[in-house]
C-alpha cells in the first residue's frame, strides 16, 4: 500500500467517524421524562398501576416505563450493583427496604412528599414502617389484609356449615371444617404454596396468623424486629397449628403434592369447581382478582365471601396481620419526586381502589370509594384492626425471609424435620445474617 492510498483510506475513515458522531443521539424533543419503574405486578395488577399513574402522565407529560418482574429482588440487586438502578421501584418488603436504605441506595423522601399530609392521612404505623434511621424512604401505595378465609357461600351451606356469623375463635373454625369433612367426605381446605423463587410464602402467612393470635402482639413485634428466637415453644406451636391442617391429607386438597406443586394463584380452583374439591381458602385480600381471572363469572358475595382469621387467645382479640406494597426512589429527579408525591395522594390511590384488588392505607380514601362490599369489608377490617401488625416475614432481611419460605416448603415435605428447620432459622437470626 503506497502512502497516498493509505492517506485516502484514512481520510475516508475519519470522515465516516465524524459523520457517525454528528448524527449521534440528540436529547428527546418531546420534553417529557421517561421514568423507569420496576415492580412485581403483572396482569390485572399491572393494568391497575398503569391506570393509577395515567392522570399523572397526562398532567406532567412524563411517561412511566413499567417493567414487571417476579424476581424483583435479583433485578434490583443487579441493577444497583451495575450503577443503573430504576428511578422508582416497588420494594419487596420493609426488610429489604431497610437494607437498601442502609446501603445508601434509596433517596430520602422527606422533602419529596408532603410530610404533614402523610402524617395526617396515613396511620402512624404505615409512616413508621417506611422510615429508616429517621428518614422516610418508602411509601405504601396500597395495603392488603392478610389471613382472610374465603369460601363459596353456595357450597358451604350444602356442606352443613353456616357462616352468616363467622367463626369467632379457632376452635369454632376447627368445628366448622370438621363438620365439612364429616358431611361431604371431601377435603375442607385448598392450599397452594408454589410461587417460583418465593415458594412457601403462603404458608408463612398461616404461621404469622397463628403466632400473632397465640403469642400476642408484643412477641409478634419482637419477632418482626428479629428479637424473638425461632425455636421458641410459641413459634413451634404456631408451625404445628399450621401443620395440623396442611399435613393432614384428609383436610387439605390433594395432600402435600398438590400443596407444593400448585401456584398460590390457582390453588383455590377446586373450590369453585362442580362438585367442589374443597370449601375454604386462606389468603390475603388481593386474591379476589385471581378468583375472577380464573372464573370470570364469579360474583362477590354470592359466589365468594370471606371473614377474618378467627381469634385464638382471647387476650389478643382483634389483632390482625396486614401488609402493603412499598415504593422507593433510587434515582433523584424532579419527575420521580413528583410521581412519588402523586402516588401518596388519595386521588391516586382511589383509582386502584375503585378498580378492585387494593385497600388504601390512606385514611382519606373513604369506605364509599370501594365499589364492592368485599373490599369495603376488608377496608373496614383494616381500620378496625387492633392492633394492625405488619407482616413479620416482610420485616426480616432477605436471607431470613427466603429461609422462612424455604422452611415452609421443607416442613410440608417432611413435617418431622420441624425442629431442625426452626434451629436453622434461629441460627440465621443469631448469626446476624
Amino acid at each position: 500500500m503506497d502512502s497516498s492510498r493509505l492517506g485516502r483510506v484514512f481520510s475516508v475513515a475519519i470522515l465516516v467517524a465524524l459523520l457517525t458522531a454528528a448524527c449521534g443521539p440528540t436529547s428527546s424533543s418531546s420534553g417529557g421524562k421517561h421514568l423507569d419503574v420496576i415492580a412485581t405486578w403483572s396482569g390485572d395488577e399491572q393494568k391497575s398501576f398503569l391506570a393509577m399513574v395515567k392522570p399523572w402522565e397526562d398532567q406532567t407529560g412524563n411517561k412511566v416505563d413499567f417493567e414487571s418482574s417476579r424476581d424483583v429482588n435479583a433485578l434490583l440487586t443487579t441493577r444497583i450493583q451495575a450503577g443503573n438502578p430504576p428511578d422508582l421501584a416497588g420494594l419487596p418488603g420493609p426488610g429489604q427496604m431497610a437494607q437498601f436504605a442502609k446501603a445508601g441506595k434509596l433517596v430520602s423522601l422527606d422533602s419529596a412528599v408532603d410530610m404533614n399530609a402523610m402524617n395526617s392521612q396515613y396511620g402512624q404505623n404505615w409512616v413508621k414502617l417506611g422510615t429508616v434511621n429517621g428518614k422516610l424512604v418508602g411509601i405504601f401505595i396500597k395495603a392488603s389484609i392478610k389471613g382472610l378465609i374465603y369460601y363459596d357461600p353456595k357450597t358451604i351451606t350444602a356442606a352443613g356449615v353456616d357462616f352468616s356469623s363467622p367463626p369467632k375463635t379457632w376452635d369454632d373454625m376447627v368445628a366448622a371444617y370438621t363438620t365439612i369433612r364429616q358431611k361431604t367426605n371431601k377435603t375442607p381446605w385448598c392450599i397452594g404454596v408454589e410461587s417460583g423463587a418465593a415458594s412457601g410464602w403462603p404458608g408463612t402467612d398461616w404461621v404469622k396468623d397463628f403466632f400473632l393470635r397465640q403469642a400476642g402482639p408484643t412477641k409478634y413485634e419482637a419477632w418482626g424486629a428479629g428479637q424473638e428466637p425461632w425455636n421458641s415453644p410459641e413459634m413451634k406451636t404456631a408451625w404445628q397449628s399450621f401443620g395440623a391442617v396442611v399435613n393432614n391429607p384428609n383436610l387439605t386438597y390433594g395432600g402435600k403434592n398438590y400443596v407444593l406443586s400448585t401456584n398460590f394463584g390457582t390453588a383455590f380452583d377446586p373450590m369453585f369447581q362442580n362438585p367442589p374439591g374443597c370449601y375454604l381458602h386462606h389468603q390475603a385480600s388481593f386474591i379476589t382478582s385471581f378468583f375472577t381471572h380464573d372464573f370470570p363469572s364469579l360474583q362477590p358475595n354470592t359466589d365468594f365471601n370471606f371473614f377474618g382469621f378467627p381469634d385464638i387467645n382471647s387476650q389478643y382479640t382483634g389483632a390482625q396481620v396486614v401488609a402493603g406494597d412499598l415504593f422507593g426512589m433510587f434515582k433523584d429527579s424532579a419527575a420521580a419526586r413528583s410521581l412519588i408525591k402523586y402516588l401518596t395522594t388519595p386521588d391516586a390511590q382511589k383509582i386502584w381502589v375503585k378498580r378492585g384488588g387494593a385497600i388504601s392505607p390512606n385514611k382519606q380514601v373513604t369506605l364509599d370509594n370501594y365499589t364492592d362490599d368485599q373490599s369495603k369489608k376488608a377496608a373496614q377490617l383494616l381500620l378496625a384492626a387492633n392492633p394492625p401488625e405488619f407482616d413479620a416475614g416482610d420485616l426480616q432481611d432477605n436471607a431470613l425471609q427466603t429461609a422462612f419460605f424455604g422452611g415452609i416448603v421443607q416442613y410440608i415435605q417432611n413435617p418431622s424435620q420441624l425442629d431442625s428447620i426452626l434451629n436453622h432459622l434461629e441460627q440465621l437470626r443469631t448469626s446476624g445474617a
Partner: protein
Amino acid sequence: MNLDWIPYLIGAVVGVPVVLVLYILGTDWVIRRLPDDLQPRARPWLWVGPALILVTGFLIYPTIATAWISLLSKDGTRFVGLSNFAQVLSDNSVLIAIRNNIYWLVFYTGLVLVFGVILAVMADRVPYEGPVKSLIFMPMAISFVAAGVIWRFMFSFQPPGAPQTGTLNAVWTSIFQQQPIAWLIDHRINNFALIFAAVWIWTGFAMVIISAALKGIPPELTEAARVDGATELQVFFRITVPLLAPTLTVIGTTLVIFALKAFDIVYVMTGGLYDTDVMARRMYGEMFNNLNFGTSAAIAMILLLAVIPVLVFNLRRFQVQEAIR
C-alpha cells in the same frame, strides 16, 4: 415511536468496522517505524493485544476478584479467611446441591451420550435419516428456560381423581391406571425429571455429531468384521465404539462442564426447592436472594475448582491431537 436507538445502530454498524480498520492500519504504521529486528517480535503482541485486554477484563480480572470476594464477609467489608468455605461446605443444603451436581454429571452426561450413540447408529440404517435427525435435533433450538417451562407443563401434577393436565400424568393415569406422580416434588425422582428435560435438549446435538463421526468410519472395516463372522453387537462394540471414542470424549467433556453449571432448568422448574438445588442455582440464591457475596463467591470458586480438571484434560487432549497432526 421512540427512534433514539437508530443513531446508536448506525454508530455500531459503521463505527465498529472503522475502529477495526483504524487499529489495523495504526498497528501497521507503528510496526513499520520500529527497528527491523524488533518488528517480528512486536507484531504478534500488537495483533493479540485487543484480545488479551478483553480476556483480562472479562475473564482473568473477574476470576481474581471472585477469589478475593470469597475471602470477605457477607457485605465485603471484613477479611474472614476461609470461613465462607467452611460455612458452605458444612451446610447440609449445599451438600445436597453437590450431590445433585454429581447426579447431573453422571446421568446427564451418560444419558445424552448413550441416547446420542443409539439414535445415531439407528438413524444411520434407515432411509428417512434426514427427517428423523432434524426432529430429534429440534429441541436444541429451544432455550433452557423455555424447555423448563415446557417440561413443567409436561410434569404437572393434579391430585388423584382430578383431570390430569400434565402430559406424563395423563398418560400414566389413563393408560397405566396408576396414581399420578408428583414428578417435581417427590425427592426420589425429581432430580431425574429435571435431568431428563436437559437430556431431551442435548441428545439431538450429541446425535448429530456422533452421526457425522459414524459416517467417517470406513465401511471396509465393519464389512471386513462381518465377513470374518462378527455379530452386529460385536461390530458395534469392537469396531464402531472404539473408533467413535475421540468424538465421544469431546462431547462428554462438553457435557460435564454443562452439568456442573446447570442452572436454568432447575431455576425455572423447581427454584432449587424439594432437594433439587444445584451449585450454580445456590450461588445465584446466595448472591441475589441472600445478598451474601462472600458465600456466593466461595461457591463460585468451588465450581471453578471442579471444572479445572476437565479443562486440563481437554487441553491435554488438544495437545495430543496437535502432536498427531
